[in-house]
């Protein structure tokens, strides 16, 4: 009995030391990592809509079983003129073939897609994983939300060979998110007519 207790304590000691080291490293690195992440997100947004400043808007959604209860999108205003709205940036997420595919999309004030960027995915390498390439984003440019369907479903987004499911996840997630924020933007436009000008 004493022998096992001793073993247990030695193992405990190893764990405590390991945990302490981890906690220390985490406390040192976390602020830096968060900062880097924030900068990366800003840079990603700036690539989608250049020369703009971003302010975030939080929409509270009615409670549903499968949807999150809030959603954030960004209004992009021109750097030179803060009353001029250039467009909106939204992030959309849906399960693809083997992972959650998270996409950032920029739309103009007519809700037409300016550009997209897949920021998080772990799809099949060589097939679905090609969705983070620029040539994939190219397929979305200039599309209206009504046309945002994979070609097999009757829309105008050309599905990647062997990765229809990934394409569909990206396409549908963006379309659905646009539909949500569109309502919000339009209700704002009604209450705040000066934004239009």
């Amino acid at each position, binding site marked *: 009995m004493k022998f096992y207790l001793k073993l247990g304590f030695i193992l405990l000691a190893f764990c405590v030391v390991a945990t302490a080291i981890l906690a220390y490293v985490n406390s040192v690195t976390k602020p830096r990592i968060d900062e880097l992440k924030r900068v990366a997100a800003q840079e990603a947004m700036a690539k989608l809509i250049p020369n703009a400043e971003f302010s975030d808007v939080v929409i509270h959604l009615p409670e549903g079983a499968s949807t999150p209860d809030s959603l954030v999108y960004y209004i992009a205003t021109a750097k030179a003129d803060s009353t001029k709205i250039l467009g909106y940036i939204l992030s959309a997420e849906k399960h693809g073939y083997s992972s959650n595919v998270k996409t950032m999309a920029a739309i103009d004030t007519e809700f037409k897609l300016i550009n997209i960027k897949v920021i998080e995915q772990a799809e099949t390498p060589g097939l679905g994983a090609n969705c983070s390439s620029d040539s994939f984003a190219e397929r979305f440019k200039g599309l209206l939300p009504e046309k945002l369907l994979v070609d097999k*479903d009757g829309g105008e987004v050309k599905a990647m*060979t062997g990765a229809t499911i990934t394409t569909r996840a990206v396409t549908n997630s963006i379309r659905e998110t646009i539909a949500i924020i569109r309502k919000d933007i339009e209700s704002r436009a009604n209450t705040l007519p000066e934004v239009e000008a």
Partner: protein
Amino acid sequence: MKDKFIVSPAPHLHDRTSIPNVMWNVVIALLPALVFAVYYWGWRSLWLTLLGALSAVLTEALIQKLRKVPITISDGSAFLTGMLLSYNISANSPWWLPVLGAAFAIAVGKQVFGGLGNNPVNPALLGRAFLLASWPSLMTSGDTWIKTLSRPFSQASINGISNLDLIHQNLQTVAPKAYDLVTSATPLKVAQTLRDSSFVNTITSSDSLNSVISNNIFTSLFDLGTLQQLFWGNVGGCIGEVSVFALLLGAAYLLWKNIIEWRIPLFYIGTVFVLTFFLGGIKGTGYSLMLPFFHIFAGGLMLGAFFMATDYTTSPLTKKGRVIYAIGCGLMTVIIRLWGGYPEGVSYSILFMNVMTPLIDKITMPKAFGRIKK
């Protein structure tokens, strides 16, 4: 292989069944389907079939030479594998598709495991699975099926759907999406797509019109006219799978020659029939005794049930086992067709049950007389 026929205790009877005899008889039974394929799609389907068979035979000879075992290509088993593989591709395939598929089927599906009688799954189906995973666009895309359907006989219908003109004189202008679907896919693909609400909801902008159009197309899939077209094979599909008539002709020959046994095809097709009667419909179309006929006539079920699921090496030895195996095949086929990502599930269902075969054999093997139950 011969000893595998014997599952009961002595006395044993011996008839003149031999491997070449069985294999070449199956090849003969497959010929009517080839005649129909040439009629519908032209000589290309014959060349592709011969290429597949030739590739299989050469691969077998090459590997047997490498393995330094007797070369047994004259027994017809490799020829049959290559032929069946080619029956599973479209007549518009590039020439190298059956060549690579058949070579893979023989090399990885059969010789790797030690040749005839040792393969765990049907080599031809494994070859097809390989092609489907490697070149999905060539194996499934809509326009591979239809382009060559230009014979006078086939112009009478649009992809076998007989009374489409009656449904909507101007479907092409009212609902181009629905029109594209019925003119460019196989009948099973049409059925699968109509089941998908994200397609149906976007046919036109009107919800009520959408359900009318989709229900009309769906019911026309199993009206008498379409079933007739399916029976003769005047639809989009793979080289050897479309004509139910030709396949039944071949199946009758095999049953008469006592080469295949009735249990596997009957229970396989029967399971699909019963399940699709209850589960095969879409919202708003109700039950119809015609619908299961659509499901057993369409796709590769006839080819699979009579010619592939019955393969000696990969199906169970006992009678009870064969029934379980066939029902399993039917169940998997229906699950894939109705809820899976692919419109057709025959090949994967047979592959799946092939893998189950040793297990089924183990649990259904009769006890030798006098042995004590564990």
